């Protein structure tokens, strides 16, 4: 959960020099943003629903691609947590033609692996697994995998990109979305279209069970990191009903039971063009991007998405305090349920977070890191773990010895209570707004950064201009409204506190 807010921007014609050649060759249906308070993004939607956002930047001959799907762990099912993330790993394992020596031969071999794996999982999940049987089933799975492996061109997808000169190839899964990113030299535009259209139309989830082991290692890595342990504990205790309860990586017991069949069903349900936005930023001609997207992505079949009506989290009635015993220095997280990003109170809450933590003149730093020297650091985040549904506004902090996490908790709450009673000064708000505005300009410096921002906002919040619009909303928030929002949401009964401490 990167700290990303705070940026709004109304600097005049901020992108004037970015546009090399605004050709009038855009096809019908494409539109260019002309309002100078926004970057000159070209928007276009394919008939199958895939949305394109294109932004020209020409300093270096490179292009950054960001494909965002509105599917994350929140869309998983009980007992199958972690599926969105495991699928993201599988999306690097090729297609019917990539990573394969011949899919027709491979298909029965993959079927055999799946049968063997499911038999093993069933035995493992049984009331009294027999060690002998398990051993046999494991050997059978290994044997089947060996046969299937012989038909694989291993890592071919990755090797193609390596040869092309990729930079920053990655993918990320959150509870809200899954994103696929890569940057390439600009004369590889069509190459990207060829590979990625195939990737999402014809994915083959080979080498599934070994990749599942890789993900288990990823989970183990998180279990060794105190900060990840705290975030997971916070989410799973603050949410009882809504699926934000589940960690994105999944519970280990769930990961152990995920099958390729599960992942294929998930792929079919959510990896459709009408659930995706593609941002292309860099040294490109928008008309060419659109023409190539039409050529390679238009036969990707759209389908209606599943119902996504998840149970709402009931109001929290009493304070929850969870103590985690872990071999590390003390730290804490305080999560308050917030009303969601589409609720009008959210802007005052965002401003409240910033009043508390914006810079060394922010209240936490000035009074608790410096002043009383209670904290090593203290931050406030408007929205964790996601933004699609009401989530948590979180204070994250670490005490400085000899002070304890409990002392720091009391001091943080005292600062919050002060804010509830006394509205912030105009200077504090203007500083925050200036920073938001400057960030909105600076975020345009990085092609991959702005690509991620545009695609995410379009796909999740419904408008790539979302951050700029938030900036306008933040300007309208009065000092009094910030205190009112703090009083409404930052209450004892609405909070979940996670305190991490060394075992005694």
């Amino acid at each position, binding site marked *: 959960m990167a700290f990303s807010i705070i940026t709004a921007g109304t600097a005049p014609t901020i*992108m004037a*020099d*970015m546009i090399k050649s605004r050709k009038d060759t855009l096809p019908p249906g494409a539109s260019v943003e002309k309002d100078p308070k926004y970057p000159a993004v070209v928007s276009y939607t394919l008939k199958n629903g895939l949305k394109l956002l294109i932004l020209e930047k020409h*300093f*270096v*001959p*490179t292009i950054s691609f960001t494909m965002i799907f509105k599917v994350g762990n929140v869309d998983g099912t009980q007992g199958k947590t972690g599926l969105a993330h495991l699928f993201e790993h599988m999306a690097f394992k090729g297609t019917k*033609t990539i990573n394969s020596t011949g899919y027709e031969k491979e298909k029965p071999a993959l079927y055999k692996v799946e049968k063997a794996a499911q038999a093993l999982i069933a035995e493992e999940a049984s009331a009294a697994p027999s060690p002998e049987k398990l051993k046999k089933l494991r050997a059978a799975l290994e044997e089947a995998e060996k046969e299937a*492996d012989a038909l694989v*061109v*291993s*890592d*071919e997808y*990755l090797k*193609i990109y*390596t*040869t*092309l*000169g*990729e930079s920053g*190839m990655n993918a990320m899964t959150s509870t809200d979305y899954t994103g696929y990113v890569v*940057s390439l*030299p600009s*004369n590889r535009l069509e*190459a990207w279209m*060829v590979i990625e259209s*195939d990737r999402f139309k014809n994915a083959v989830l080979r080498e599934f*069970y*070994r*990749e599942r082991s*890789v993900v*288990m*290692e990823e989970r*183990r*890595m998180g*279990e*060794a*990191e105190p*900060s990840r342990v705290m975030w997971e504990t916070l989410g799973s205790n603050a949410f009882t009903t809504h699926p934000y309860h589940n960690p994105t990586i999944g519970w280990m017991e769930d990961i152990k039971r995920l099958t390729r069949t599960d992942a294929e069903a998930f792929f079919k349900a959510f990896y459709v063009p009408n659930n995706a936005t593609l941002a292309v930023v860099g040294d490109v001609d928008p008309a060419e991007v659109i023409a190539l997207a039409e050529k390679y992505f238009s036969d990707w079949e759209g389908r209606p998405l599943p119902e996504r009506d998840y149970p709402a989290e009931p109001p929290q009635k009493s304070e929850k305090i969870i103590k985690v015993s872990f*071999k*590390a*220095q003390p730290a804490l997280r305080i999560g308050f349920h917030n009303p969601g990003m589409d609720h009008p109170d959210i802007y005052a809450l965002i401003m409240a977070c910033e009043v508390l933590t914006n810079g*060394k*003149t922010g209240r936490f730093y000035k009074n608790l890191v410096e002043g009383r020297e209670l904290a*090593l650091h203290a931050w406030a985040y408007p929205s964790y773990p996601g933004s699609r549904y009401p989530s948590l506004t979180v204070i994250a902090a670490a005490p*400085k*010895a000899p002070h304890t996490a409990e002392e720091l908790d009391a001091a943080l709450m005292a600062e919050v209570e002060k804010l509830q009673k006394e509205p912030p000064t105009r*200077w504090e708000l*203007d*500083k925050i707004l*200036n*920073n938001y*505005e*400057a*960030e909105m*300009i*600076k975020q*345009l*410096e990085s*092609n991959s950064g702005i690509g991620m921002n545009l695609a995410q906002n379009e796909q999740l919040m419904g408008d790539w201009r979302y951050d700029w619009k938030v900036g306008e909303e933040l300007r309208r928030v009065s000092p009094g409204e910030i205190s009112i929002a703090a009083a409404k949401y930052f209450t004892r009964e609405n909070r979940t506190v996670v305190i991490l401490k060394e075992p005694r």
Partner: protein
Amino acid sequence: MNFPGLPANFAMPAAMPKLGGVNFKPPRGTRAVLGNGLVVYLLKDSTLPVIHLTAYIRAGKINDPAGKIGLGEMTAGLLKDGGTLKYKPEEIDRTLEFLAASVESSMGIEEGRADLTCLKKDLDAVLDIYADVLMHPAFDPGKVKLRRDEMLEMIRRRNDDPGRAVVREALRSFYGPSHPYGWRSEEATLKAVTREDLKACHDNYYRPNNIIIAAAGDFSSDEELLGELEARFGAWPRGEVKFPVIPPVRLKGERQVFHIQKDVAQTYIVMLQKGLKRHDPLEYPLTIANEILGGGLSSRLASEVRSRLGLAYTVYSYSVKKPDYGYSLAYCGTNPETCGQALSEILRQYDLISREPAPAEEVKRARDSIVNSFVFRFPTPFDLITERASYEYHGYEAGYLDNYVENLSKVDPAAVLETSGKLFKPEGAMLFVIGNSKKFDKPLSEFGPVTRLKED
């Protein structure tokens, strides 16, 4: 030779268009020298109304006195925070934060840095502060205490995340805890630093003739920005900088295993071998060898340890150059129950690359990877001009950056084999492990004589 996981028939998709090369000649920018020896690199770029500037100060954590390790870092960290002759600390924070500008300084292992970012309209005000921060820091006593306390707290927390601690501790054992390449600050060395030490450290290293500045952004012209810099830094007197003598690196070169017992979910492995001195031309074949071995998800280590065996999420290798011997490092995080298996596989991969010629196709792919992605070293004009300044700082020959691609393109399988054979000696590698040995699949003693260390 057959590498499992390395297909002979890796191919581009049939529908792939014909691919041209990537030919990017990075702009040179402007280089100027002020009368007092301050070197300035400039690259005007009016894409956005933002200005970035950084200074390389010839200093580093390796230059600290042995009894005061942390002095350079504390000095750098207090340049702004401790206030200046002209500005009180609060005044600086209020001004910069209201303008959404930043002035930050830090101390690296062998370089000091001071960065400025601001909107074009605020350059004058922010540059005034920046210049005073570099030239006339006041080291306010209250801020010195705060900074020291923060650094002491960071020491208390340095082992919280074993996945990070393992690299620092491995290097400490590799170079020796009292060698500047391996040392770390301790409670006693931080407490030994006085305010006078900070002033003296600043007075010695922060001199115009010891600094290279790089700037890019939306200034009107090179002349204008040079004038602004001259107006602020022109009267800053030169000084004779005294550098300590760094003792030569002495490495054992024989197999040693270090183990820190810790009951954590994952086990962390670092393998270290002797690397190169900074200007050794072997860096080109070594770069290719590392790309093949552990450079990305399709490298041999990732392909074997991660994809084929499913033993790790994180596994990679790289090499670091230093004025004296640098190092080659491999990293892996694995289940304690597969620690021995992962270690064996990593050792096997180093052994293979140093004994068997890599297929020409694999060497070509590694070359293509670096040559074709070369342009990504300069995503912005500021990144480019900073890189140019860094090469002068580290004493590279003038054409280093512009000839880099050509020099790399010359590397062939024979050069990779020769260099790997010369530099990778897994039988003499140091292995460093943090994890719960009660769960290990094999005792570490099977990998060599084990020294047990305590986490501290």
